[in-house]
């Protein structure tokens, strides 16, 4: 019962802070304008002019969704998750008769709803730009698309808690710098380990596979390769994120 009361409150905050409105508008603009632009582009290879088809269009949509999800997890994690648990407000939140375990699950579910809305906009924009038949008789695998979105979702959920814990610990500004630094480091490491440096790759393999995310999506969508290892690793990091967040609420901040 208390879980639903908290979830409702979390969503009221999302609506009143205008995050939902901004998500809907920004996501629609990104997907619709992005796909419309891609749809009109033509490529000329050895004199043969070709256009971007629904398959490539969906591939672009998944990438756009990756950026939108990262952006959303940063906003939700850095500003919204800490709202009830920081400063003078935290004293009032702390003494509510609510199990501290509920908070990470409420935030994870609220965020999942936002992400699902984002995916809804992705599919809606895709259908609008490429037509209904591109969705009803797709030239891509729904299974591969589902796995791409699943791996993205787990990554965003983990990042949500990563941003949230950092924001409550070192502040918003520092969080953005640390997150950007980590993102660049993991991307660079992901690229470097493809060309050697195996000595250090054991550590890298244990870290959140952020540097592999783009490769995973590409392989899954284009070649149907199921990234079971990385999916599992994201799940482990997501669970660690929930546990760390729970224990970061041990005392008011």
């Amino acid at each position: 019962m208390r879980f639903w009361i908290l979830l409702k409150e979390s969503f009221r905050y999302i609506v009143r802070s205008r995050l939902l409105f901004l998500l809907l508008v920004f996501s629609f603009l990104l997907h619709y304008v992005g796909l419309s632009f891609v749809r009109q582009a033509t490529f000329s290879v050895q004199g043969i002019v070709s256009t971007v088809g629904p398959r490539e269009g969906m591939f672009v949509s998944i990438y756009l969704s990756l950026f939108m999800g990262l952006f959303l997890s940063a906003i939700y994690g850095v500003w919204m998750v800490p709202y009830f648990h920081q400063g003078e407000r935290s004293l009032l939140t702390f003494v509510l008769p609510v199990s501290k375990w509920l908070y990470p699950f409420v935030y994870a579910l609220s965020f999942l709803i936002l992400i699902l809305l984002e995916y809804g906009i992705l599919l809606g924009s895709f259908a609008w730009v490429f037509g209904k038949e591109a969705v009803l008789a797709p030239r891509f695998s729904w299974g591969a698309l589902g796995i791409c979105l699943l791996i993205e979702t787990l990554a965003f959920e983990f990042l949500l808690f990563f941003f949230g814990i950092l924001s409550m610990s070192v502040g918003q500004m520092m969080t953005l710098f640390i997150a950007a630094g980590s993102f660049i480091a993991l991307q660079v490491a992901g690229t470097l380990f493809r060309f050697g440096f195996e000595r250090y790759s054991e550590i890298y393999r244990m870290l959140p596979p952020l540097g592999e995310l783009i490769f995973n999506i590409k392989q899954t969508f284009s070649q149907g390769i199921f990234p079971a290892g990385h999916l599992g690793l994201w799940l482990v990091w997501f669970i660690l994120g929930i546990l760390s967040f729970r224990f970061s609420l041990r005392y008011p901040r």
Partner: protein
Amino acid sequence: MILEVKNLEVRYGLKKAVEGVSFSIGPGESVGLLGANGAGKSSTLKALLGMLEPSQGHIQILGGRPGSFSSFEKLGFAPEEGEPPDYLTGREYLSFVSRIKKPLKTDFALAVDELLSWFELDPKKPIRECSKGMKRRITLAQAFLGEPDLVVLDEPLNGLDPLMIIKLRTRLIEQRNKGTALLYSSHILSEVEKCCSRAIILKEGNLVLDSSLESIQEEYGGIENAFAKKVGGS
């Protein structure tokens, strides 16, 4: 017993903020927690509410350990500097706290309306548009929701106008008569004298006086004299 503290010690690194403090509060008792700045009042309150880990001692609050779910169900707390969520109105915030405290209770609106009216709050005004005094009233109002067995108030008079101070005093006396225990941390000795039946005085982390106001009156001629003698040494 509503609250039992035995040999409480709180440390910040090597510095002892509270040392060997023991006291208890029974149902319907109203106890003033007094002390100069840095005497250990806030540290004691934080330890009671589970907001910091004592280095030593034992606390039992409302039948549970500090910070436990069961203790918070029967507790009302108004911190000195509490800031309610500013995207809500006063009514929405009080309704939220009320539902969280008693999820199965359906008639929470009555209690919320009574408190809104009693604290003279505009139910539809967003908290972000409220003055500091109004926010203070909302913070105090939420402490009385859910029929608490113990109300802990930390410097409750800060930011209140004189009329509301007088009103709050009557509310506290009413609550006490209903059997609610009260722990009232304040610098304002005269208010503690009017609202409480007992006073605890801390000095440099140590409990230097724990006595009923009647006894204090008899022995020292009033709480101000007792405070001056125990804290100021005069």
